[in-house]
């Protein structure tokens, strides 16, 4: 049962990502991203990372996907955008994809990964809170500076667009 669900989630992630990359319609791409994000959340559940799964749903699906859809909707005639980059060569891209993908898959299969027995699905939120405030205190506080800069950067970039209109 677990295996089947896992495979379904993995297929969902990959198919979603494939549609994102190959769809001609950018709105379809955005909704395929939804599928991909959602299945990734499911994979986190399999790794007994319940808080990360919830974060995935809240931030990626609730936030970033909505942002992408806004981005699509406020771009004029997005379905008719001409790709100006002449370097776009599908054939070479396929060769690169197959070679690099093949090497990566072969390496992943051959490697002795450090594995652990699956954890019982206990809530991890508290442990994370503890880790934030002890072991990872410095990255936690630095993250607040990064968020501040991102916030102000978003205002600066966004306001300029408004002014130009």
């Amino acid at each position, binding site marked *: 049962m677990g295996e089947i669900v896992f495979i379904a989630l993995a297929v969902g992630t990959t198919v979603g990502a494939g549609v994102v990359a190959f769809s001609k319609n950018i709105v379809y791409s955005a909704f395929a991203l939804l599928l991909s994000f959602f299945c990734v959340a499911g994979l986190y559940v399999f790794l007994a990372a319940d808080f990360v799964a919830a974060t995935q749903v809240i931030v990626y699906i609730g936030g970033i996907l909505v942002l992408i859809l806004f981005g699509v909707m406020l771009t004029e005639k997005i379905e008719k955008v001409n790709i100006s980059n002449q370097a776009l060569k599908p054939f070479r891209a396929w060769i690169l994809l197959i070679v690099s993908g093949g*090497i*990566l898959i*072969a*390496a*992943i299969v*051959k*490697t*002795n*990964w*450090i594995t652990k027995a699956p954890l019982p699905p206990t809530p991890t939120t508290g442990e994370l809170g503890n880790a934030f405030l*002890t*072991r*990872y*205190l*410095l*990255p936690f506080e*630095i*993250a607040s*500076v*990064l968020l*501040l*800069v*991102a916030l*102000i*950067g978003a205002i*600066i*970039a966004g306001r*300029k667009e408004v*002014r*130009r209109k």
Partner: protein
Amino acid sequence: MANVESLRYFLPELLLTALVLAVFLVDLGLKRKKVPIATLMVVGLLVSLYAVLKTPGAEGVTLFLGMVSLDPFSVFFKVIFIVTAVLVTLFSMESDEVEEKNFGEYMGFIAATTLGAVLLASSNHMLMAFLTLELVSVPCYVLAGYISRSRRSSEASLKYVIFGAASSGLMVYGISLLFGVTGSLSFEGIRDALSAGNPGEIIVLISLIFILAGLGYKIAVFPFHMWCPDVYEGAPTPITAFLSVGPKAAGFAVLVRMLHVAFSSSDGAAAYLTDISSVDWPFLVAIISAATMTIGNLLAINQSNIKRLLAYSSIAHAGYLLMGVVALSQLGTQALLFYFVVYLLMNLGAFLVVLNFRSQTRSEQIGDYTGLAWRSPIGAFVAVSMAIFLFSLTGIPPFGGFIGKVYLFASIIQGERFIWLAIVAIANSVISLYYYARIIKVMFLRGIDAEDLGGFVSSPTTITLLTILAVGTAVSGIFWGPIARWVSHSASLFFG
């Protein structure tokens, strides 16, 4: 060291954080911003520079449970970043490319980048390295697109963001693969796991390539250099100067620390490190180094925009600097650090001339530099300074760049393994002479009767800064002893 005890050693970073917050806050309350905010920046940066130099425990301690380490190596780079930020603040005062009403955030982003760079240079943990790499990148994305209503500047910012996001993604993937085989994220932990057992060299190599993609983008080496000319051309000139020194040095700092701590083991012989887990990364980096300097120099030849030319020149310099990483010896790291001191002086100096010229003539075309030396006495002074910077960038004695290159070549030749890289580098220096000399030729040998082009003036600040940078470039090529002693102290950490 535990979290609370670490705070005592963390004063410079705390001061920089306070500076970031203070600049954003002061910006809210002011109408006329330029002078007060630049003053605040310079004072804040100098105070944290003082704190960097006075902080105890500079003999090597790890802080915050192994997240960052405080040692002569990180102190060296902290000094480089803060000095760069001070100079760029002064450059920004001289530039008219940033509107006064947006000046506060602009300075705040420079302060935030500096904070990120300071932390990146001392990162001792993959999580910390990634987070601070983002803290260096995010403000730079905004800064690159800071000229409002300029398509070129917006394009620069967009290209920078997209390249940056893709390479960060690769880097995180590489880190996760490495974590999967070593079970550790701290640099020492990764080294211990790699030297204890052989977890499969292919996967270590792949993860290293991905991590190099993230860092290689930051330092603009082949094949992650494509963003560089467009961003350097589109960004405001002070920011171009900043990007070519500050974030680049930060990327090199973490690259050296990561490769020397996580991917090398001490071999008994004090001055050398050997790479471990049978992954031959020095060879990989040597190839990147050769390709980077060759591509940078070849593409620089045909540039007509001086900012693009200096962008390609800075790509080529990243290639030279990588030689110090390839050498994997104390001399190599010393050479790298020495070159950064000189590079800071000559590259910022060259960009200051570009900035000054732009504010006078609204032009960035090399052709418009015709007869600069004959237009006015100040024009002659600026042209002579530019010639010093360009000769030094080429590596011609008696300027600092020459000594820096000698050190880099010596470290490669001493290592014996990559003699071919030294030959490639010498050939590249010859190529670079061609395009640097072209600018000098245009400034001095053309348009000797150029007085009808109008006078050329510079502000007293520009003249002072140019004098300091030019004298520094020249003096570091004659009396390099003090710098050599300082860098030798800073580089000793990874060896023996």
